């Protein structure tokens, strides 16, 4: 009976694989662990396939993704909150060095997301990056729509704050002692 589900699962994989991959990555699963995470998600989905309503498939898959990502994060012993890296280059530096390739930007995005709490991050990823609706998110997370709206608002604020930090102009380089002496001598003369 279970083996007969294989074609249906294959079809689902074709449809939702990128969604699962992206969601796991945006929820903090490293690229190296994402392979394992995807397999765990799909094994759960394959087992429960018969009891999932087709119209709720996406919500269900996302709820499994959230659980798997949460377990993997816990297994890695990562902190819920991570501050932005002090050494994250500012936008001007990125522009100057031409480093706005997608991969680099995604790394930045992951850094921004990791500065949010887990609850805010989940809602932000699902709404802003995966285009899910509030009812879908509420269904997947088992919370009310009001809670989703509240978390989304807080998540957006956190996201904007982080982006502003990234865009802040770099600090002016400290003048060397020699330059200071030169300026002082000019002033005296």
């Amino acid at each position, binding site marked *: 009976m*279970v083996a007969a589900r294989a074609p249906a*699962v294959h079809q689902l994989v074709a449809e939702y694989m990128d969604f699962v991959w*992206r969601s796991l990555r945006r929820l903090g699963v490293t690229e190296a662990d994402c392979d394992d995470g995807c*397999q765990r998600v799909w094994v759960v989905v394959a087992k429960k396939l018969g009891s999932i309503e087709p119209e709720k498939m996406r919500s269900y898959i996302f709820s499994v993704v959230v659980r798997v990502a949460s377990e993997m994060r816990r297994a890695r012993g990562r902190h819920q909150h991570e501050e932005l890296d002090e050494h994250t280059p500012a936008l001007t530096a990125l522009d100057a060095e031409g480093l706005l390739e997608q991969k680099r*930007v995604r790394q930045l995005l992951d850094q*921004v997301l990791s500065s949010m709490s887990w609850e805010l991050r989940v809602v932000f990823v699902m709404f802003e990056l995966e285009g899910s*609706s509030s009812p879908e998110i509420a269904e997947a997370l088992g919370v009310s729509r009001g809670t989703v709206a509240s978390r989304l608002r807080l998540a957006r604020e956190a996201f904007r704050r982080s982006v502003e930090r990234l865009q802040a102009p770099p600090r002016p380089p400290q003048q060397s002692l020699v330059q200071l002496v030169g300026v002082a001598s000019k002033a005296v003369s």
Partner: protein
Amino acid sequence: MKDPSRLLETARGGLERELLRSAYTDVAPDAVRARVLESIDRGLAEVAPRLPASSAAGKRGLLLRMVRAAYLGGGLLAAAAGVAVVLLEQSGPRSRGDIPPSSLAWLPGPARSAPARGSEPAAPAQSRAKPHLATLAPGEGQAARGSNTALAGMHPEHLRAAGLANPLARNTPARLRADADEHEDWLGAQLRLLREAREQLEAGRLEQAERVLNSYGPRFPGGVLGPQVNGLREELSERRTTARAASGRLPLR
């Protein structure tokens, strides 16, 4: 409640937009996709025999299979009983009690120890008893009812194989269906419980909501909606805190 517009549509700066757009271009590598498909095929093949021990759903599956096996196993005996009843029916006109007890000795039920006696009053007909059973003596009736029970528990395929119309086992497919439905509806029941808890919560009936949430664990050990239940618990706790804070701010009269 209408969803707000997506941040990507209203992004203020270039970086904000770039960050949001970058997520869409992230796709699963083909190698990972292939490995996942391969492991699903392998996993599905392995999961089927391992299901019974691995999860509550699996245990239900095992129970269902055991029940079906019991139907199949008992089916042969029941079919033989059914054939005997049909043969007795076709053996021509007879009066009560003219069936030799030895001919019913192999039937399950009290017939083996209580042979038919024509002098006994006829037992009240069972609601599901068929007309031909009513013509039998009490002992025979009991015996036939024994076979009735056996037939009722017989798999329809066996009855078809035995060439019996199976009028006595009409409820068998329904029972099987009910078991299967129960198995398939396991998640549905969890979702209903979750929905009920949410309704109670949104209606402000916090005690009832808590009671419903507390019933989740015992009702669905190993249930798949644990994170959602925890989410609701968290929300319940938040509401309680808010309610306490609000009541603390209110002036005492």
